[in-house]
């Protein structure tokens, strides 16, 4: 039966014929194509085990080392696929090698009452992979109407607690300042979805809130070397931000913003206010940051410790390096040359190559290496 799940997609393009981007001295290989609205990419820890890829439509794919794609059966409880909703991020449990547990964030519910959910399931040990024992461990509350701004990014901290970003639902922006709910927050959970005792607001909203005042955050990385948590979030028209997340802090939305509304009206007259953490970098006009990774590989030696940020509207990968007062853009990489391609995800592989996922239907996975190997 598991064999029947193995779909070697006809549309697969496994082209190791590299497309060199001479202007950037970066070599881009198309590893896979024909993906339908992919959202996240996760490398499996075993050598040559390949990658797991999520698609917003709810499919979980195994991308093998030879480039073949196989669908892994996944039955997410109450999955909502609509607008910006669907299957989002995937993250391996810290004890994955023993437990084979993976975590998945996704939109759940119906169009008139939905939210961001977190489920965990077990991945079988050998390909063709399958999942079992799927359970929802966290549901952001309250439910809201519409299908926008879910957040959904997952990151593990060194103490084996899990951070999950939650969006403001677009129409509920003021709730990002309300500590009695999960809208516009980053929540910190234990592996079973419950609240750690040392969260900053133990008596509010189930004790899970880590930080608040967020609009729609889809980029979050833990930087072990600096013991820092870097996060980015979409602004409205302008005002995309990079923040250094600290427990209990307010990141301002919607009372401070460098952006204005899509109608050009002011969301707030203030870019900064006392008691609100100011961004360490902001993009105006918006580039729509979709994912972020910390470069810790060896292939791009000049980028050690830099942030890699993919952009949707900006259609590029940006490399940001630390500056006196935050982060500064060091390099822009446009897939296929300018004006680039909408990018959904970025991950650094164990071999130091950078893997990019393009956005939308008929999306591709690209592997970046230096054109001249160090």
């Amino acid at each position, binding site marked *: 039966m598991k064999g029947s799940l193995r779909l070697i997609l006809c549309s697969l393009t496994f082209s190791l014929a590299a497309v060199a981007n001479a202007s950037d001295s970066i070599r881009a290989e198309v590893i896979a194509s024909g993906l339908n609205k992919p959202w996240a990419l996760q490398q499996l820890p075993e050598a040559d085990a390949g990658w797991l890829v999520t698609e917003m439509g709810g499919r979980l794919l195994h991308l093998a080392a030879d480039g073949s794609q196989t669908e892994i059966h996944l039955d997410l409880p109450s999955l909502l696929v609509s607008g910006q909703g669907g299957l989002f991020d995937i993250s391996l449990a810290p004890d994955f090698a023993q437990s084979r547990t993976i975590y998945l964030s996704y939109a759940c519910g119906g169009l008139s009452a939905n939210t961001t959910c977190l489920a965990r399931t077990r991945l079988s040990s050998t390909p063709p992979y399958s999942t079992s024992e799927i359970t929802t461990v966290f549901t952001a509350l309250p439910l809201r109407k519409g299908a926008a701004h879910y957040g959904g990014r997952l990151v593990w901290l060194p103490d084996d607690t899990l951070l999950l970003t939650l969006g403001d639902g677009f129409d509920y922006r003021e709730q990002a300042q309300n500590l009695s709910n999960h809208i516009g927050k980053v929540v910190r959970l234990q592996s079973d979805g419950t609240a750690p005792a040392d969260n900053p607001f133990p008596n509010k909203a189930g004790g899970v809130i880590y930080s608040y005042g967020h609009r729609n955050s889809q980029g979050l990385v833990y930087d072990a070397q600096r013991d820092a948590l870097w996060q980015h979030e979409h602004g409205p028209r302008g005002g995309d931000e990079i923040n250094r997340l600290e427990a209990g802090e307010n990141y301002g939305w919607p009372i401070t913003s460098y952006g204005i*509304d*899509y*109608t*050009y*009206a*002011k969301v*707030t007259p*203030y870019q900064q206010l006392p008691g609100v953490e100011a961004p360490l970098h902001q993009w105006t006009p918006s580039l729509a940051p979709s994912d972020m990774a910390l470069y810790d590989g060896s292939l791009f030696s000049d980028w050690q410790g830099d942030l890699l940020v993919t952009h949707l509207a900006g259609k590029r990968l940006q490399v940001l390096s630390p500056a006196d007062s935050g982060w500064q853009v060091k390099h822009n990489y446009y897939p296929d040359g300018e004006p680039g391609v909408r990018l959904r995800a970025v991950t650094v592989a164990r071999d130091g190559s950078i893997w990019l996922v393009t956005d939308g239907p008929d999306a591709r996975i690209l592997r970046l290496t230096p054109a001249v190997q160090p």
Partner: protein
Amino acid sequence: MLRICIAFVLAVLAGAIVGSIIQTQFNLAALVELSVPIPFDVRISTIIHDLIHFSPIFGVILVCVLIVALPLAYLFSRVTPVAERWWFIGAGFMGVLVGLEVVNLLAPMPTLIAATRGWAGLLAMAATGALAGWIFDRLWHPTPQELAERVL
């Protein structure tokens, strides 16, 4: 025809300006509820910013709405001429209500104009359509009494 055009332009201008000021108040009220201080000078500068940047957007919506709603009001007013002014007021009001609903269906975000997320804001913005309808009919087809009024 010139009278109709002038009446239409002035109706749209008035609706866009009043609508812009109204939506600013709803946005700032939401911030005040979050204990954000909005002193008078900040309120005025926000109103001016929105008049410059938001009112053209709302003006475009009003043009699209009124270009349909006002001829409909005219047709209905032929049936009951005594209620002509009310037909134009009602058409402007309903036109903006329906127009914003259509915009929200077409736009990628759930609600384009933040002030219309609640009923109070939606009705207040629709009232600017009513104002535009009233101004149009008042200028295009004034009553004999209105014509007799002194301008200054």
